């Protein structure tokens, strides 16, 4: 991105704004923070909001009594600098609505949204426009490229509305196009491009003004599966290079897991669970989430630590096991690696080592249960020698 920052006078000599001051201690301040955000649509939104909050009336009652539709209910989450945060939910769950609060395309009924520590509810219209133009890039589900502009001018649109001189904005557009591997396509028109390419143009447009934050509203949903996967890979690669804070919306849990460092699951306007992909998959909070994760392959998600027996317990139970001789993996290695080792070396047990020290033992049984999504059992020490542990010891 250095080439681009040179071209674009983004954080130039203007007096330091609130946001720039925060940038200094950016490590502590979340890039995006939503605090108790509510969105209720309708004429009586404030009264309906009170009713929902204090009396906890249902969605249907809210519509019948106040003529209001509940969009987002008490959503709080924060996104760290440089991380990808996915919001996953089915259509109508309010995820797009929630995202549009972050750049205030939608005003919340209640609650605060902070960008780099600044409450954007306090910004004036011109300040908000400047924030959108400089700090936040957005990618849309159906690309939404402007049909009468060529690719270069589409990408340069955000800079154009900021009145960046033509030469500079075209140079920035070319840089952004190069990032998405579309260099040389600047003179084409959107209709001449395939869906996947159009969405890369959409991404380039969001990147052209070198924003801190990317908002991606189901960017890959409209594409066919093969292209979708390619774009996910490209995006991940790009993301590791540019380290942009990204809020990513999807209805596809697989995609959320591939892309997100954290995932929030949304249902009927409520964020039902927020966690890392592994937390969501291994420990769903309710049946709704459990249903979702049921079909997800755990091979690349769940780590050895989750399926191992603690070394102390295991070796107390089976003192005959020569733990030092077992093949070993690191604590963050995934189940796939464990399967690989167990099938390769015909080992029945694998040691999990952290800093050279054995912290746990994975057996075939615990691995298979882990793949099934069942929790690892506790090793029992009563006289009867419960069969679980016996099996776990595995002759």
């Amino acid at each position, binding site marked *: 991105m250095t080439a681009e920052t040179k071209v674009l006078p983004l954080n130039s000599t203007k007096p330091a704004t609130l946001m720039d001051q925060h940038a200094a201690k950016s490590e502590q301040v979340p890039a995006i923070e939503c605090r108790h955000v509510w969105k209720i649509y309708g004429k009586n939104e404030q009264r309906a909001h009170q009713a929902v909050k204090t009396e906890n009336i249902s969605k249907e009652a809210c519509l019948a009594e106040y003529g209001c539709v509940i969009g987002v209910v008490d959503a709080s989450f924060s996104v760290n600098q440089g991380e990808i945060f996915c919001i996953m939910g089915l259509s109508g769950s309010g995820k797009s609505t929630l995202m549009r609060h972050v*750049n205030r*395309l939608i005003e919340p009924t209640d609650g605060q949204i902070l960008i780099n520590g600044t409450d954007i509810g306090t910004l004036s219209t011109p300040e908000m*426009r*400047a*924030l*959108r*133009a*400089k700090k*936040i890039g*957005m990618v*849309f589900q*159906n690309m*939404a490229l*402007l*049909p*009468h*502009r060529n690719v270069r001018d589409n990408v340069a*649109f*955000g800079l*154009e*509305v*900021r009145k960046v001189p033509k030469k500079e904005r075209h140079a920035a557009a070319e840089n952004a196009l190069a990032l998405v591997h579309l260099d040389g396509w600047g003179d084409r*028109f959107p209709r001449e491009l395939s869906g996947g390419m159009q969405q890369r143009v959409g991404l380039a*447009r969001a990147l052209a*003004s070198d924003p801190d934050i990317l*908002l991606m509203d189901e960017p890959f949903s409209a594409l066919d599966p093969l292209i979708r996967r390619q774009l996910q890979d490209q995006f991940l690669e790009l993301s590791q290079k540019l380290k942009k804070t990204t809020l990513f919306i999807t209805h596809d849990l697989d995609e959320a897991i591939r892309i997100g460092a954290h995932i929030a699951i949304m249902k009927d306007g409520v964020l039902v669970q927020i966690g890392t992909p592994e937390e969501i998959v291994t420990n769903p909070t309710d049946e709704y989430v459990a249903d979702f994760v049921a079909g997800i392959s755990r091979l690349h998600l769940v780590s050895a630590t989750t399926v191992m027996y603690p070394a102390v317990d295991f070796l107390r139970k089976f003192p005959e096991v020569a733990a030092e001789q077992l093949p070993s993996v690191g604590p963050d290695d995934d189940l796939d690696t464990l399967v690989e080792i167990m099938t390769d070396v015909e080992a029945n047990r694998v040691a999990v080592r952290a800093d050279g020290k054995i912290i746990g033992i994975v057996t075939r049984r615990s691995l298979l249960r882990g793949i099934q999504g069942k929790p690892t059992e506790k090793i029992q020490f009563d006289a009867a020698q419960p069969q679980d542990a016996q099996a776990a010891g595995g002759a």
Partner: protein
Amino acid sequence: MNGDAVISIGSYIETLVDWLNVNHAAPFEMLSALMERSVKLLEAVLLFPNAFVVMIVVALLAWKVAGRQVGALTFGGLLFCYLMDLWKATMLTTALVGVSTMAALLVAIPLGIWSAVNPTADKITRPVMDFMQTMPPWVYLIPAVILFSLGRAPAVIATAVFAIPPALRLTSLGIKEVPKDQLEVGKAFGATQGQIIWKIQIPTAMPSIMAGVNQCIMMSLAMVVLAGLIGAGGLGGEVVRGLTRMMIGVGVRSGLAIVILAIIFDRVTQGMVALSKR
């Protein structure tokens, strides 16, 4: 007016128009002079060079905008008008159509954009446009003559009024039909309301606006011919001459020239619609 009418709209309108004519003649005179001069200027420009130069220049422009076939058609059509000895009348009619179309578009496009973005404006323009479109076109000629007397000025003004509705409607429709997500793009990238109108809505609505321009020109041509009745001259004047003197030859040849002109105007502006879609 029929004395038995309970509501004698006719007499109210007569009173209003007479009152305007007597007490507020100045703005009408100014408008009249402006139109008169614009037509005269455009006519002079069209008639100043040799007729063949005009034919070739216009045909080349048509070629550039709408392709070789339309270019050839334009040249052939104009040549035919010239050979029928209707060159002067054809050029005058072209000048009348040009000026009335310009006047109509100057009103129609801004109002169309306004009524697309402002629901109140839409509520006002809609019934007015309905009224203007369904009122028989001859009726416009009467107040035009009273306020602007006979000749080209009332013809141009009545024509412009008649040609406003389709251009206004199509402009408004085009702007309203710009996809919502494109407007969201404007907002999300920090564009002002004005930038959204100029950089997103108008360019995206261009094919529809150009279709409005096409309709505006065609309506103008139809009306300018009618305006031959109030002394506008040109091909319309020829038709009226043929009609009043029962000279079928005069009527048919000027009718043919009008058809040719209409085809040329239509094909060229269709070409412009197609260009704006690219």
